[in-house]
């Protein structure tokens, strides 16, 4: 064998109800290398990590670590074998100090008495090795994002990890923090630790990778040594999902400008500007964490904006709360319908009418009117349910999403913001939701759609705005829309 392989995955199959994520997926990792994995949103990167860390079990295929085949991977076993995963979100005890975080769960002790001195000594050693300025006594919650990530890396290092998986570690990092983390990772690789590094940022990939694997739709497209790879090849490999079989919508007549924002800034968003016209659907593309949801929440008054103006039909309006937004005929179908869209324990009727209450100041709401409204939109949305008094937690994902739509249709709005409208919904329900959106456009309403589903974006949008790191980096007109363009702009490749 020319290379010393620490990890080998062969013929991995994994499917979830209705979706096949992996089909005959192969992957290998050499000792002491930094192996980057690239792919679009939803290409299967997270699933890969979860299989490796034992959170999911593959349906078929074998994983071998250090030459030994692992039968049933569990999170415990993964950790014992030295596979450490560092997720995008911090996974630390924010109120404890660095030492306590590093040794939580495997404290050094003499009998039952903790050996604090030794732990502190060890912490200092590791931090010095990682070239970090953090003190062992710092409270973790008070450290910056980059420093917290360093603590996580240090913890993985102390736990004698052989394979370290980093999922999007640099999201929301400053330039300096990124530089430091990449140095830390290189140091670890020199120590013989193998690293799987997942990133949306091309620049980082080219700076640290030894090899790069591109995955798309759960298939390995190719693995390259970094010296054989250029940006163009990488992007071409990442794109290429089949769009032609996708839903085709009839284009609506595009009218006057309906909605415009200029120079909106807030937490996670910098100087965003765009406009939408009647009957037009603009897509907002970007990688996860690029500030798209934050932008939608800013527009809708859910978050406070630092600056920026909102114009509706040529009139400047102030939107400070969702109530203001609803008064201006805006609707917001959120990304997380269970947490921010629905009242799961309540009936369909209750869910469907609530937003429409904000339209008038009339205090009375007769149950008969509620039922009439609910019936009307349940019929229009084709919600399948035994009764309109069914509690929504017993509905399927697609029907739940339709209840959210019914809620907003009942407000008779004009400006619809859809955040990931078809996430976690089966194919049939997806198509119905596209039909509903198409009908909205035909009625002269406008839609702002955030989506990570590339075919969906391309098929549904009239224009596409691309966001990266909180800024609107580009606008792509209909005739220039293709996957390659969107992806290049989203991950920061040059033209």
């Amino acid at each position, binding site marked *: 064998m020319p290379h010393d392989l620490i990890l080998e995955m062969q013929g991995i199959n994994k499917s979830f109800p209705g979706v096949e994520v992996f089909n005959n997926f192969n992957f290998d990792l050499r000792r002491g290398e930094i192996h980057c994995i690239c792919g679009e949103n939803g290409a299967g990167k997270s699933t890969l990590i979860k299989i490796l860390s034992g959170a999911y079990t593959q349906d078929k295929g074998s994983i071998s670590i250090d030459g030994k085949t692992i039968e049933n991977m569990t999170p415990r076993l993964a950790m014992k074998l030295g596979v450490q995963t560092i997720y995008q979100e911090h996974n630390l005890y924010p109120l404890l100090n660095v030492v306590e975080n590093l040794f939580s769960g495997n404290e050094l002790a003499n009998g039952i008495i903790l050996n604090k001195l030794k732990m502190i000594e060890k912490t200092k050693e590791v931090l010095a090795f990682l070239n970090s300025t953090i003190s062992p006594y710092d409270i973790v919650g008070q450290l910056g994002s980059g420093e917290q990530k360093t603590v996580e890396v240090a913890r993985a290092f102390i736990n004698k990890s052989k394979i370290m998986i980093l999922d999007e570690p640099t999201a929301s990092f400053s330039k300096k923090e990124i530089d430091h983390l990449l140095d830390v990772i290189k140091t670890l690789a020199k120590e013989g630790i193998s690293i799987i590094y997942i990133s949306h940022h091309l620049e980082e990939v080219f700076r640290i990778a030894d090899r790069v694997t591109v995955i798309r739709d759960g298939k390995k497209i190719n693995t390259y040594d970094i010296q054989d790879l250029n940006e163009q090849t990488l992007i071409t490999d990442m794109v290429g999902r089949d769009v032609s079989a996708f839903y085709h919508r009839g284009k609506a007549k595009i009218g006057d400008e309906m909605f415009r924002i200029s120079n909106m800034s807030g937490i996670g968003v910098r100087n965003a500007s765009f406009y939408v016209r009647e009957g037009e659907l603009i897509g907002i593309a970007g990688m996860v964490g690029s500030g798209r949801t934050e932008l939608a929440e800013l527009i809708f008054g859910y978050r406070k904006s630092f600056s920026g103006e909102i114009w509706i039909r040529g009139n400047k309006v102030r939107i400070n709360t969702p109530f203001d937004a609803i008064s201006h005929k805006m609707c917001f179908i959120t990304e997380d319908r269970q947490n921010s869209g629905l009242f799961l324990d309540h009936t369909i009727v209750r869910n469907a009418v609530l*937003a429409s*209450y904000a339209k008038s100041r009339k205090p009375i709401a007769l149950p008969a009117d509620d039922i009439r409204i609910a019936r009307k939109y349940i019929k229009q949305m084709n919600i399948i349910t035994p009764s309109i008094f069914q509690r929504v937690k017993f509905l399927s994902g697609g029907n739940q999403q339709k209840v959210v739509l019914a809620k907003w249709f009942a407000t008779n709005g004009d400006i619809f913001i859809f955040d990931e409208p078809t996430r976690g919904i089966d194919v049939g329900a997806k198509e119905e939701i596209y039909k509903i959106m198409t009908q909205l456009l035909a009625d002269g309403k406008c839609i702002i759609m955030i989506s990570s589903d590339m075919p969906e974006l391309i098929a549904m949008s009239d224009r596409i705005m691309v966001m990266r790191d909180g800024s609107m980096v580009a606008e792509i007109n209909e005739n220039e829309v293709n996957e390659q363009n969107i992806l290049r702009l989203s991950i920061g490749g040059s033209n």
Partner: protein
Amino acid sequence: MNYEKSVPKKANREGLLKRALHHENFTMLFVLVIIIFMVIAVEFIFTRQMRFEDVAFIKGMNISNVLMQVAVTGILAIGMTLVMLMGGIDLSIGQMMSFIGVGMAYLLKTAGWSEWSVVIAGVAAAVFCQLVMGFIISRTKLEPFIVSLGFMTIYQGFVYLITNGREITLMGKFTFLGKTYIQVTDTFRLYATVLLFILLVVIVWLVMKYTKFGRRVYAVGGNENAAYLSGVNVKNFKLLIYALNGIFVALAAMAQMSRLGTGNPLMGSGKEIDVIAAVVVGGTALSGGKGNIWGTVIGVILLGIISNALNILGVSPHYQYIMKGVLIIVAVLIGYYSGMKTKAVKKAAH
């Protein structure tokens, strides 16, 4: 499958019975009826000649008294139901009731205010107190449990400052709420407080059923985030609910003070526990968003009947606490298991 159209076609009477059986208050109502029968049966056995007329529990005088006691707790429980439905809790109501009560007694007797100005001052003070607390709770992410615990202690301090630990007698003033009654039969009386309680229940029931306000209480309790995104001003809404709760506390304080004829510094102590117990026994979820006012009425009556029955049977008050506590836990357990059953049925139907 679309069952929606086929459901109303079924025989109406069967549907009505089925709906009653599946109503969320049914289990507790059933328990209440059983307990009433059990109390009557036990007392019947213990009476000397097994004569039905000797059963003290169903004598008109006793029922009048039970209703009177239940009414004061009940008025507090209406406010607490609103607070708990929207996902909050208020531990301060007991001490606040004492505070408002002795404050009003002080104004009546020592400061010599007229009855109506005292009533207005009492309600205003209660609403103000709750606004302060509601402001803190709605504008921060502090736990209402802790904040109201703090306020509870503050009110306790005020009570002792005003009274020095002694009660303030009203000298025959302020008798309307607690001492006027309608003589229904020879022995059965309906006190004004009871009528007030019934009136308030009906008002709150109608408001919850027929107004946007009522629906929003459930929405805020069910999912605060979604409610905010659906255009409910959650912060001000919470403030409003706490302010309303203040009105109910003031009314309860007046009723209790009027009944006792004194401003007693201990008149509200421990009430918060009774009230929360009654509301929870009545089926309102501590997490909010689930429950209704009739459940609370059932809960209040249930707890009231139990202590009354134990008194009549001559059970020592020390045992009464234990039995009451056991009953609360049993009631909640019954609610929990019947809730699980309906869930299973609905899942199967789906």
